[in-house]
């Protein structure tokens, strides 16, 4: 059905936007590199493809006059999701242009800020592109050529957003959210309300220097540890009994 397709595509766009945000934050810092610039380029190309696809789908759905009121409300909600994603993406793209211009890579001495980030962002980009491994093929003038392309793409995105606002008559403030406050604490969200899997609560938290929070996370871990301990003690008792019986 049209709705399910829309929802999966919006999910994908959402994922790509989130990954793009992560990549842009790393720009200009010590984890910046040629690879990062290429990852940014690929991610935003993918984002644009998804955006165009989403837009055509949603506009065709919304133009259909013969849909029921609930359906229309649902499509408006999806439209608001889509336009918020696009606005976020546009801002991030503009910011990446600014930072990219301020911190060029092809100069003899690079002035990248020592922020403490050292790892690479390959895995994030791989997640965005939904591939297992990223392959890099960029040539050496990634700086200038990439930035020019980026300006063009920003122009395209702005134009698309402008068209969207002019042509589609959706009042964003009239949409009611389906999630209530604190909904993110439950299992991972997708556009549809089905919960796919449960996140593990007790995973490794980045320990904060002030030691705040995170106390509850170790509860489940400690229960697991206690169970394992009991099992080991039981096995030891059984073995001991056997040993005593033997001798």
């Amino acid at each position, binding site marked *: 059905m049209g709705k399910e397709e829309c929802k999966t595509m919006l999910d994908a766009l959402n*994922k790509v936007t989130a990954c793009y945000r992560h990549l842009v*934050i790393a720009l200009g810092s010590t984890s910046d590199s040629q690879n990062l610039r290429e990852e940014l380029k690929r991610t935003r190309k993918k984002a644009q493809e998804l955006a165009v696809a989403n837009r055509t789908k949603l506009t065709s759905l919304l133009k259909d006059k013969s849909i029921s009121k609930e359906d229309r409300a649902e499509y408006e909600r999806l439209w608001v999701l889509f336009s918020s994603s696009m606005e976020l993406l546009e801002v991030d793209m503009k910011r990446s242009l600014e930072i990219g211009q301020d911190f060029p890579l092809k100069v003899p001495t690079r002035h990248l*800020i020592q922020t403490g980030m050292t790892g690479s962002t390959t895995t994030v980009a791989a997640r965005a592109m939904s591939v297992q491994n990223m392959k890099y093929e960029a040539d050496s003038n990634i700086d200038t050529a990439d930035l020019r392309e980026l300006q063009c793409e920003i122009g395209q995105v*702005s134009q698309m957003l402008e068209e969207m606002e002019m042509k589609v008559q959706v009042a964003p403030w009239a949409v009611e959210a389906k999630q209530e*406050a604190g909904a993110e604490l439950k299992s991972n969200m997708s556009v549809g309300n089905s919960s796919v899997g449960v996140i593990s609560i007790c995973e490794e938290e980045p320990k904060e220097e002030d030691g705040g929070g995170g106390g509850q996370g170790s509860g489940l871990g400690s229960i697991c540890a206690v169970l394992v301990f009991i099992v080991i003690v039981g096995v030891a008792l059984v073995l001991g009994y056997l040993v005593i019986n033997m001798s």
Partner: protein
Amino acid sequence: MTIRTTRPQRDQHYRPRIHCLKKVEALVVEMQDTKSGVKGSEQKLNVTSIPHVITGKDIVTWIVNKMKNNTEEAQVLGTMLVAYGYIYPIQNHKKLVLCNDASLYRFQTPYFWPTQRWAAEDSDYAIYLAKRNIRKKGQLEPYEQAHYNHLHKWLNHKWDFIVMQASEQHKAGKERLKSDRVVLDCQERAYWIINRPPRRTHSAMDTGPERLLDPSSDEKITFDQYRRMNIFYQQTIMRSRVKSSVSLGALVKYVTTYKNHDPFLAPCLPSNPWQTDNDAYWTMNMRSVDVPTKMRVERWSFSLYELLVDLRGRDDFKIFLKKEFSGENLAFWEAAEELKWGTASSMSAKAETIFKTFLAPGAPRWINIDGRTMGLTVKGLEHPHRYVLEAAQTHVFLLMKKDTFFRYLKSPTYKDIQKKALSPEAHNFSPAQLEQNAQNRSPGIHPIILWQQEEVEKAKAAAAAAPIDVKAMMSKVDRKK
């Protein structure tokens, strides 16, 4: 390539308003240079160690060497860097100062620098709070929880998007190295402490109303502007000047009289409402309070202008003048003020009444001004305008100042009110009480109620100020005899 979009700008043109940010940026880039900048070290957490951490002491020494100033100035400059968000403290993350000791700091990533021409939007903040909610499993700090609830109400139409984006960003973050995750979390937290500061955190961000100018852009001054600047400066030189001994003497006199009354220089009793959220100071100094505070009464003795400008003081002065039967000067002064500040349509009517009551020969409240001024005023009243009574008003004011004011200061009325005046004690709130005060702020008195009270006062004053009929008084006195 610029695209002129006709898209309605739903957000304001955000322009960081602080001029110095470009220069500060250059300084920061130099500071973090591996060869000539501040030496970084590693920070050891449980199993990971994160590089590029710097101590406050090192920063201060580096600034002293680079800018050739002393330690205090370097510390102030460093505090500015922290307050703008270029460097963030790791240990005491809410206190945005640079301590000249071994406390640890780290550089902020350029995405979160304040020079970015993008305002810290509410939707971004909502996404951040949702992510924090996931990480902290619902245990947000109280101010964060308040913001969260507020944003949930006002950004409700985008809430699905916010939740989805927050969970996706959280999951994407898990793909990175553990140390990078910690650093990213610290960076975001520092950014939002600067842009949405919790109570009593002093952030230096200043957005203010929208301006058409961009303060960070370079300005080219044209030839015509230079020409006009030159003319202006030449004319300034030709102005008549006051000797600096005279002007400085006046300044010194002003400062010595008013220094205890200035809320910046002296503590405000009982407590400054802007700092402690307790409005006892304002309720005690209202217009229609029975017993004024000692500071207020002392202020009345500085000059007649202070006495008249404070309406409570004016009331007191009126009581005194009534006893002395010389209230017509003050009444004329008030009437002239009303004419100056009143509506244009009521001016001719007011001018008529003023003439009949105060200036006509044989008027019930005739004021005693010299012949020349009287002649000018009467002539001007034929075609009344706002400032027609200016000369007479000044004369009357001087009369009051030179004669009545000093008698007032020595009078039993004034001495009485000096004795009765309150001297409130200073409040001494603990931080918990300050939080309590902040949450229980009252909206204050509604302006309509204040206006009604004022109308009542005016009616009473009008009734009480009905011109004392001299003949009736004399006949009463005769009858007593």
